[in-house]
């Protein structure tokens, strides 16, 4: 037991703080946080990385990341990142945003940061629901999905369609690299890491805007067990949001 624990601690990335996260059991945020840290370490960019944390479940990311982090107002994350990157073009700047932050209240900011071709990295964690505020409908909530504000399931005629942000951004010439990944299986986690690394590399190489959408589990507000949540991504969620490269160079 003691040996096992030591082995886990030894593998904590340099860029990750040795802290217990506040995330619910089965949540994907912890995995994504770690992948970002592993990539930052592998690229050797920890001492020049500046992260912009969102409003939402991941607002406390600065308690887990061991590099410079600022908060941003809800959805304004890409605007804040724009200000930082323009002042410090030699730093590596990324935003970490949820679906409420990026696809609802911050829709204008993400579209225009992408369209300006800001040389930043965006990690977009899509779990199809507002977690921090108690499980309300997100723009990415699937048809029929029950949430705190769609009690009988999302009705497409009443609430509109789940937004595919990557496909929307793909038409913008300023956008260089877009990929959708997931963290519901070991294989997918590895693929997610490769995509996140390429996204950071895109910025390091001054190629322009890139964004990785990560399909992530929210057992608490999906009303499912962690295992059922994994199956849900494997099934209906990745059916609607296909995993794969949307745009590349």
């Amino acid at each position, binding site marked *: 037991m003691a040996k096992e624990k030591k082995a886990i601690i030894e593998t904590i990335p340099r860029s990750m703080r040795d802290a217990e996260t506040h995330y619910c059991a089965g949540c994907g945020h912890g995995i994504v946080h770690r992948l970002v840290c592993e990539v930052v370490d592998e690229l050797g960019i920890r001492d020049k990385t500046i992260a912009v944390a969102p409003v939402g479940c991941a607002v406390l990311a*600065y308690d887990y990341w061991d590099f410079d*982090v600022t908060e941003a107002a809800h959805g304004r994350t890409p605007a804040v990142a724009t200000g930082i990157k323009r002042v410090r073009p030699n730093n590596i700047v990324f935003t970490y945003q949820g679906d409420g932050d990026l696809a609802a209240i911050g829709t204008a900011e993400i579209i225009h940061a992408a369209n300006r071709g800001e040389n930043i990295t965006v990690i977009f964690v899509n779990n199809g629901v507002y977690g921090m505020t108690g499980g309300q409908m997100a723009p990415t909530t699937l048809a029929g999905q029950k949430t705190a504000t769609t009690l009988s399931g999302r009705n497409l005629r009443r609430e509109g369609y789940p937004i595919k942000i990557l496909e929307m951004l793909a038409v913008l010439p300023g956008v260089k690299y877009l990929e959708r990944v997931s963290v519901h299986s070991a294989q997918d986690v590895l693929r997610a890491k490769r995509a996140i690394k390429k996204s950071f590399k895109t910025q390091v190489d001054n190629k322009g805007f890139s964004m990785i959408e990560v399909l992530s589990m929210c057992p608490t507000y999906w009303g499912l067990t962690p295992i059922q949540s994994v199956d849900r991504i494997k099934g209906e969620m990745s059916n609607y949001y296909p995993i794969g490269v949307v745009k590349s160079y």
Partner: protein
Amino acid sequence: MAGKKILMCGNDACGEGAVMAGCTFYAGYPITPQNELTAYMAKRMVEINGTFIQAESETAAINMVFGAAVAGARAMTSSSSPGVSLKQEGISYLAACELPCVIVNIQRGGPGLGNIAPAQGDYFQSVKGGGHGDYKVIVLAPSSVQELLEHTFTAFNLADKYRNPALILGDGLLGQMMEPVELEGRRQILKVEKPWTLTGCKGRAPNVIKSLLLGDGALEEHNKKLQAKYNTIKATEVRAQSFNIADSDLILVAYGSVARTAKAAMSKARAKGLKVGLVRPITLWPFPAKLLEEAAGRTKKFLVVEMSAGQMVEDVMLSVKGKAEVDFYGRMGGGIPTEEEIMEKIEALI
């Protein structure tokens, strides 16, 4: 040696004051009557190798300024009344995170879309908060084109000195009119160490900029720290001008462009033998409360003149503490009080 004067409009002078102060980042969104300022910064930021961004919205612009301030730059945004309303969320976050920056409001008539004529209807929004939570921004009210330049320069120093947003409260009259401006002058950029900025954590522990404080009592402690800072600013940074207040039966109180009309009315009244003085607050927050309270002991009446339904008049009443009568004359929705109108009111009161 008096320098050469050149003719400039207020909005351009404001932009030049920012450049002189070392502003290297500007983000803004088009709105009348401040468009010359955005255009001026578009030109000057390129010339000095700074950053100019025409943002997708007022909210994006203020949050770009947030990012630039986080990264340690002297940064500015500008707008006019409806646009400044949109920026209020960002201003609250800037104040909460103690980020220095300069915001310019070239006010227009309101409420709503209003019109593009000069007004002073944003006084409450500027000095009482504007956004959510207990915070203050330093508010400077220039009354000439030269002062738009000088006060913008000063605003950057004050913002850095106190790690706090500073706001220039002008109006469409000041922004649009042209006056001779002396560019040379003995202005000194206040150099302030900014160890809190995000530069990447090379050689130091990581920095975090945040306003979310969930720990037991943590937010109350942060608020107490902010209030202590605001008290220091109140004790140190009050700026005002006063004229003839030692022997006045009536003291006019006005700020910004209206203060000039009020001063002209005062001179006319004096020429007629009427004992009229003038207090012109330059900082609207912190407000020159002590100056007004002291003046209240020496005069019978105050007449507050504003381009609003009466907003600063409330602060004058609070300052005077009932020691003298406080009257008000104002015009709204782009109406400008004239010298004659003020004179008429003076004669009715004395």
